[in-house]
């Protein structure tokens, strides 16, 4: 494959994003749905192209700027798929709030492009640029609902803290560049491995800043402060977008920087990740118990899940990375569904993000109560749902890395975490509804959420295929 063929999905996506932008500008208000359909079509074809161009072996293109490999392709395909569902969920929600504008989809497509660039980056420069592209789109999407003070505040916080994180990342990158004389991840790995650098203090110094930057983007404690406010303040349609696909991109970023580039410093970053992971699981799970707002609760649960996600990476083995990748994909699917349910229940300017809004859901709609229960139990890590396999796979690798104590800590926190998920189940099944009106969401939304829930159940019964995919993808990168 020539360089340009290798990045066909990205090129197609960029072209289509521009096309959507222009088409949208000339569309009358009544035909706004065309923008939406074009965006969905773009994602489908982009995902299809990614799958069609699945590389047999890693190929570095554009003078080391990007790499096309198994892990990247799998994650990119999943990102496109998850974004597809996120767009589907958001249509009715945006329309009811009069923010059904082409920009949401244009920015969303550009955000997907940013994620894809991050995922397939092979140089610190590309990672940074992809990250900025993604972040810029997300800032704007959070702020899009201009009449909402919450959204504006969230966007401001997100922007300021995001800029801070980018600064950290850049500072770290400059240190690494100073130490090794290159930003190409392959060359950095070669320099670190060659042993020419006698005193690696400068590298470790840079590494600290890189890890801080990455932790900011992942939302790991103690760099998590932005996350609950942003998840809570942003319109739910945006929250579900932020909370799902970008986590996979963030995972890829961690993999690229720490594993592809700085695997030689594993002893150093492993210790840092252990601390981040334990803190995230502790703070996320404990604070989530105190939340009364479902979006905030999911935000803290995200933090806890990030702690688990890190566990696989810090085990430092190929199997561990595969486990983390599995976790990232699974988490994105579950989180998408959880927020999707909030969108499903809200209507006509009425947000269904308080815990009370889920009271007695079983009486209003047994089917969606069941679907929500599947999501919750899956997040809590109860078999046979897929969240259990995700937790299991990372814990297994942590034990394999001779850190049994860490696995025990993780298990203890996950049982604490089970409590707040259980509380929502209790509300849905044991309490009387405050408002017994039936669910009025559109058919496409209902179908999409149902498919999402069945996917969590189905993957839970047959996790083998996805696992094999992750292992194979990492072997080919």
């Amino acid at each position: 494959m020539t360089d340009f063929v290798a990045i066909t999905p990205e090129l197609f996506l960029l072209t289509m994003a521009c096309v959507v932008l222009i088409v949208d500008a000339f569309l009358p208000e009544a035909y706004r749905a065309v923008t939406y359909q074009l965006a969905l079509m773009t994602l489908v074809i982009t995902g299809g192209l990614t799958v069609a161009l699945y590389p047999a072996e890693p190929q570095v293109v554009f003078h080391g700027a990007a790499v096309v490999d198994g892990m990247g392709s799998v994650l990119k395909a999943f990102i496109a798929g998850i974004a597809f569902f996120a767009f589907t969920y958001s249509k009715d929600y945006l329309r009811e709030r009069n923010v059904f504008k082409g920009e949401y989809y244009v920015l969303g497509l550009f955000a997907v492009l940013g994620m894809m660039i991050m995922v397939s980056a092979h140089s610190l420069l590309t990672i940074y640029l992809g990250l900025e592209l993604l972040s810029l789109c997300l800032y704007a999407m959070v702020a899009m609902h201009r009449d909402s003070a919450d959204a504006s505040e969230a966007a401001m916080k997100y922007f300021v803290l995001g800029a801070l994180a980018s600064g950290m990342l850049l500072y770290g990158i400059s240190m690494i560049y100073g130490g090794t004389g290159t930003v190409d991840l392959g060359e950095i790995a070669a320099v670190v491995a060659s042993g020419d650098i006698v005193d690696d203090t400068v590298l470790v110094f840079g590494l600290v800043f890189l890890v801080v930057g990455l932790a900011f983007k992942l939302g790991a404690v103690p760099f998590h402060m932005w996350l609950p406010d942003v998840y809570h303040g942003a319109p739910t349609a945006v929250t579900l977008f932020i909370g799902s696909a970008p986590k996979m991109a963030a995972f890829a970023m961690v993999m690229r920087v720490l594993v592809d580039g700085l695997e030689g410093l594993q002893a150093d970053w492993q210790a840092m990740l252990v601390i981040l992971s334990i803190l995230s699981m502790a703070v996320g799970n404990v604070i989530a118990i105190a939340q009364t707002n479902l979006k905030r609760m999911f935000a803290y649960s995200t933090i806890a899940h990030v702690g688990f996600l890190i566990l696989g990476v810090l085990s430092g083995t190929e199997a561990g990375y595969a486990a983390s990748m599995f976790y990232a994909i699974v988490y994105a699917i579950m989180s998408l569904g959880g927020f999707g349910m909030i969108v499903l229940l809200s209507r006509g300017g009425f947000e269904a993000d308080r815990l009370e809004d889920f009271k007695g859901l079983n009486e209003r709609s047994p089917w969606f109560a069941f679907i929500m229960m599947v999501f919750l139990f899956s997040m809590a890590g109860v078999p046979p749902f897929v969240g259990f396999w995700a937790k299991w796979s990372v814990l297994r690798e942590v034990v394999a890395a001779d850190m049994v104590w860490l696995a025990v800590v993780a298990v203890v926190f996950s049982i604490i975490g089970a409590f707040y998920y259980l509380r929502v189940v209790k509300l849905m099944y044991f309490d009387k509804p405050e408002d017994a009106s039936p669910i009025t969401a559109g058919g496409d939304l209902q179908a999409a959420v149902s498919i999402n829930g069945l996917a969590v159940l189905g993957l839970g019964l047959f996790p083998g295929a996805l696992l094999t995919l992750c292992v194979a993808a990492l072997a080919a990168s």
Partner: protein
Amino acid sequence: MLNWVLFLPLLGALGLTVVPAHRNDLTRGLTLAVMGVQFVLAAWLYGQFQAATGALQFETRIPWIPQWGVYYHVGLDGLNLLLVLLTAFLGPLVVAGAFSAITTGVRLFYAMVLVLQFAMVGTFLAQDLFLFYVFWEAMLIPMFLIIGIWGGERRLYATFKFVLYTAFGSILMLAAVIYIAYTVYTATGVPSFAIADLYRGGWSLEVQSLLLAAFALSFAVKVPMVPLHTWLPDAHVEAPTAGSVILAGVLLKMGTYGFLKLGLPMFPEAALLFRPVLMTLAVVSIIYGALLALVQEDIKKIVAYSSISHLGYVMLGLVSYDLMGIQGGIIQMVSHGLISGGLFLMVGMIYERCHSRDLAHYGGLARLLPGYAVFFMLLTLASVGLPSTSGFTGEFLALLGAFNAGWAELPHATWPLALAATAVLGVVLGALYMLRLAGRLLFGPARAPHLPLAGLSRREGAILTALVAAIFLIGLAPGPMLEKTEASALEIQSILNAARPAGGTP
């Protein structure tokens, strides 16, 4: 065929989703039919079961998650045969018993009962540690909902207590399972969870002790053994009748079955080390449970505490390491399932009529409800362990096993014999609290909160007749059952005894 027994309830639960929500009669009928067919199939399997071998029969083994060496591996052996039969037998009775008690959310209720049935049978049948764990956890969700939605006044407290206790135990088990998976993989290079492979796993004594402790905690919560029993009275009292029956009849056996199938044979050296502790706790459970039952005023609580006491015999039989004791333990599990299941059903029937479980409100039911009184008396006598009932067979064999072991070990240690002798006290106490319950409930001046009382309906009569018939069947002719369990029990016993220092036992 075995797979049909396993998956039939799940198919039934799926089938219920297409039944219209308001067609309660159809829902009930379908569930009863599914359970009935399951029992017929299970009975047929029981008939086909070959007693001569301890190997697995009706085995199915297909890869589930090949990269972790996890298989869908189910099969019948002498250990789980009777328990599967018991589960399948209680299924239709539970369903029929709940016809009149459950009037809201009927479809969800029966769907949950069916899912629970599926998970329970799956737990018994699983021959792969991982599969076992998945089924084990899967039981939690339906039980959580059954107690939480259709329970009594303090149902939320009870259901959360139940779930947190059980989840705490099973999370420790999960940690142990992960560790086992890892060591097996590093030792052999092939990931495997087949339970048979894990017997004599070859861990060092310290590791075995930790692993056994993790498993034992999880199982001991389920049994429940003193001092991890406090969830049980709450869960039983608050659960709807059907929930109590399943809980007492089947779920509690998961713990003892876990000890028999996994805990003891997987870690035989550590089990030997823990044996005095387990035996002592078993005897403490027998006595303490009986004493607690003696002072309760709530009918359901009396039956609940009696479960703690009765399951103590099971544990005593299992850790006696005597063939008769182990088999007695198995029979006692089945017997307790039938008796306490029956008693809970009867408590439910009187509660439906009078809306009170306070013993002080009742008296002289023998005159008000003669049919009811006959059945209650029969169950009481079975619970006390009257010869010719199943309660006698189970308790007697378990105690006999404990004494056998005690005599055999007398040259080395006196404590097994002392414990066995103490356990006999439990029989006396058992007679005391059960006769106190029956006496105050059935005899004396006739009174009840809601007079007049309707007699037993034909449905109720049929349920109780079936139970009592089964109880007498085991009591009068336990031979075939003992025969079918013998080969497997022998196998477990040989694994356990292999860990003993030579010359310790005959």
